[in-house]
């Protein structure tokens, strides 16, 4: 049975790109802070930092698009067999399934896709990546499990 090592830690950031580094520092430190009991290998912590950065970047963009100045909340829980991070914004929300698939990487059209790689990264690198969108905003839930 899963037991909690670190109870929920929350960071509330203004919706600006300058704070993304702080978000990554928080989840990286939380995932590592339990030392030998940490559920994740160093490479997995790097993946966690990456997928959380993607979710937080989407949140900053989403709120920027509608001028919402609310804080973005990053909530992190470390259990003995996984790390769960939720990124909660007040943007207009989006549907993960509605994000178009990228064209094949070797076609010229692919180079036009300078954006939109983040969702693909989250789906590839996180063990779970769920998006809940509603009128009040979006919660992205990311889980990385111990191997």
């Amino acid at each position, binding site marked *: 049975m899963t037991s909690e090592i670190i*109870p*929920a*830690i*929350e*960071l*509330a*950031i*203004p919706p*600006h*790109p*300058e*704070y*993304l*580094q*702080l978000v*990554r520092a*928080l989840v990286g430190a939380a995932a590592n802070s339990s030392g030998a009991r940490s559920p994740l290998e160093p*490479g997995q912590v*790097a993946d966690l*930092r*990456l997928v959380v*950065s*993607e979710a937080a*970047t989407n949140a*900053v*963009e989403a709120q920027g698009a509608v001028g919402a100045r609310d*804080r973005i909340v990053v*909530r992190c829980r470390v259990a003995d067999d996984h790390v769960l991070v939720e990124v909660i914004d007040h943007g207009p929300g989006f549907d993960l399934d509605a994000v178009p698939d990228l064209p094949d*990487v*070797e076609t010229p059209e*692919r*180079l*036009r*896709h*300078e*954006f*939109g*790689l*983040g969702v*693909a*990264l989250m789906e*590839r*690198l996180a063990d779970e990546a769920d998006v809940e969108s509603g009128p009040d905003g979006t919660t992205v839930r990311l889980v990385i499990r111990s191997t």
Partner: protein
Amino acid sequence: MTGSISIEGALSDRWSSVGVEPGRTESTIWRERDQVKFDLHRRDLPPIDRAVGLTSGVGVVLTVLGDLDMAGAPTLRQAVVAEVTGGTRLLVLDLTAVDFLDSAGLGAVVGGLRRLRAHDGDLMVVCPEPRIRRVFESCDLDRVFVLYPDVGSVIAAVIAAGERASV
């Protein structure tokens, strides 16, 4: 149980631009201040005699230090625009000292390649670190970019391409 840390907006306005200066052999475009880590250094490549389609003095190395994310990407985009406008046709992006790369940073790299190619140039990437290479690979962009281990390997590849073209 829930703990909460809330931080006010004192992190803004922390970056100083000293401008992009094509033609100078070396310059720091953005300087690290406080905790936000992002620097961009520029230096000319040595002239490569047999480079395809290149005349001397148009090769430039941009070295990125720190975190290349949504906060750093606009600086890289501006630098690429300035280089192309200033005549650079071979741009080497050295990511050896990058601590973190995500899709926003990758977007700026892809955009740079597109811009160089639109001007009959090329953008080549130096990226020896497995953790940073993994980001390219996770987006299948290792099929678009050759990730060179160092700047010397880029120069060797450019010379080899020139020799093949002249045969």
